[in-house]
């Protein structure tokens, strides 16, 4: 059963140096503040996993928590590049960043296999793409009925998956709705699960489009209102489009970036 705890205690207990950590969220419900807590606790050598790494991963990479990124699209949506991600890959600053790069279809199916506790998933994908040759988690398999060759991707089973959701009840059952992305699969694929929520309620009344993750598949729930900013939580917050644009100049320059992170993330006054 999930424990209701503080974000600081949850990260301290669940995220360790060297872990494979997925902070999932498909433009909606991105667990940004959980990422900031991981930065504050100075985790190192993490393998970060996410289909769509954006600002919070740019920040984590720029602060040196990651040694590897497993992903399928790494950009600032509607704005452009992730400059800290590029600096790490192109110049090894602040530390070199290894990448395992997939398509969305491949990454989604890696989580599906992980959630199903299968070693791999089958899809029609990567045919003719240079991606296949560069990843040891992309292979092929032959259909035993038709003889057809298909793509295979290795299961993704993070040590820890972190997501942000709208609500939890006091027993730690979690409810999220709107664009659901790959969060259910990422949660069910992981050994440990941390969920930050906008609100803790007595009763999770049914909602259209909502999924419920039972308390017994979640390790810890932390009450973190606004925890997805600059992303959003449908029904609670709206996407801060201006911040995505503002991030571009902040992140272009190492010094500007470091100063911003120091003031806005490391600043003890902001520690949860």
């Amino acid at each position: 059963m999930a424990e209701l705890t503080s974000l600081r205690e949850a990260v301290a207990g669940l995220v360790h140096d060297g872990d494979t950590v997925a902070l999932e969220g498909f433009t909606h419900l991105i667990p940004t503040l959980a990422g900031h807590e991981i930065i504050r606790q100075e985790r190192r050598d993490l393998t970060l996993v996410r289909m769509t790494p954006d600002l919070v991963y740019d920040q984590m990479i720029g602060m040196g928590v990651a040694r590897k990124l497993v992903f399928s699209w790494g950009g600032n949506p509607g704005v452009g590049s992730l400059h800290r991600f590029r600096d790490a890959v192109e110049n090894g600053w602040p530390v070199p960043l290894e990448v395992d790069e997939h398509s969305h279809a491949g990454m989604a199916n890696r989580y599906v296999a992980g959630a199903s506790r299968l070693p791999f998933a089958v899809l029609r994908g990567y045919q003719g793409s240079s991606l296949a040759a560069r990843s040891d988690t992309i292979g092929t398999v032959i259909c035993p009925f038709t003889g057809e060759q298909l793509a295979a991707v290795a299961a993704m089973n993070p040590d820890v998956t972190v997501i942000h959701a709208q609500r939890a009840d006091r027993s730690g059952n979690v409810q999220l709705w709107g664009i659901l992305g790959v969060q259910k699969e990422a949660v069910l694929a992981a050994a440990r699960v941390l969920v930050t929520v906008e609100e803790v309620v007595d009763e999770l009344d049914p909602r259209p489009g909502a999924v419920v993750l039972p308390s017994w598949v979640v390790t810890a729930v932390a009450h973190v209102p606004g925890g997805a900013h600059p992303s959003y939580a449908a029904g609670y917050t709206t996407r801060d489009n201006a911040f995505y644009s503002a991030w571009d100049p902040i992140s272009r320059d190492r010094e500007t970036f470091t100063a911003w992170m120091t003031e806005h993330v490391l600043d003890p006054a902001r520690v949860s």
Partner: protein
Amino acid sequence: MSAAEQELGWSSDEMMAVASARALAEATTCFVGIGLPSTAANLARRTTNPGLVLIYESGTIGAKPQVLPLSIGDGELADTADAVVPVPEIFNYWLQAGRCDVGFLGAAQVDRFGNINTTLIGRDGRPDLRLPGAGGAPEIAAHAGKVLITVRHSTRVFVEQLGFVTSVGFGQGDGDRERLGLRGAGPTQVLTDLGVLEPDPDSRELTLTACHPGVTVEQVREATGWPLKVADDVATTPAPTADELGALRELQERTRKAHRAGS
């Protein structure tokens, strides 16, 4: 606007969006990438194809946004969709299953066979330039009934040789899609701010088939990084109509207002 554009009364980007929207006139469903493709698809819903079903990789099926989304996960896409499904489902049950008539893609680089690079670009004496990566493009390019590509025309984009093939168009030419088991028809049109390229029926090499009004074949040749094949009779794209321009500008103005407010 340039002097030419002021004279014409519309910009080359507007011509590109209008031509792209016209290319969607016949489609039932379109799997939409963000940016120029999303502009074109939403313009099509206001002009050539009001019933067009927009599918975004965030799992929103039948989205009907009033303003252009900044990301494929904007709340309005979910709020206005016929159905919102998880991301694994959108790729497995919908895209891979062949339920998308058109896949609409942008690109960082395109070669003469309509192959796309959105991953990385080699640079002399410097580390490779890192791009955002594949996203949904490789499987959109593989499974969509046909693929439309829209991108601004320049020698930086239309290159002789791709250092990295992220998404396959026609590979090295005729027959390669079949050899690779790619089920869709591949890129049937590349719509740029200068004109329209279409694959040669035999060789599959991209060929200039239309120039936008005021654009010469020579201009397009100069903006292309390989000796561009040119059709025997190059058409001139009909200029944007007042309705098309009105719909596009109204959409973009509403989008600017909304996203200013939203921030």
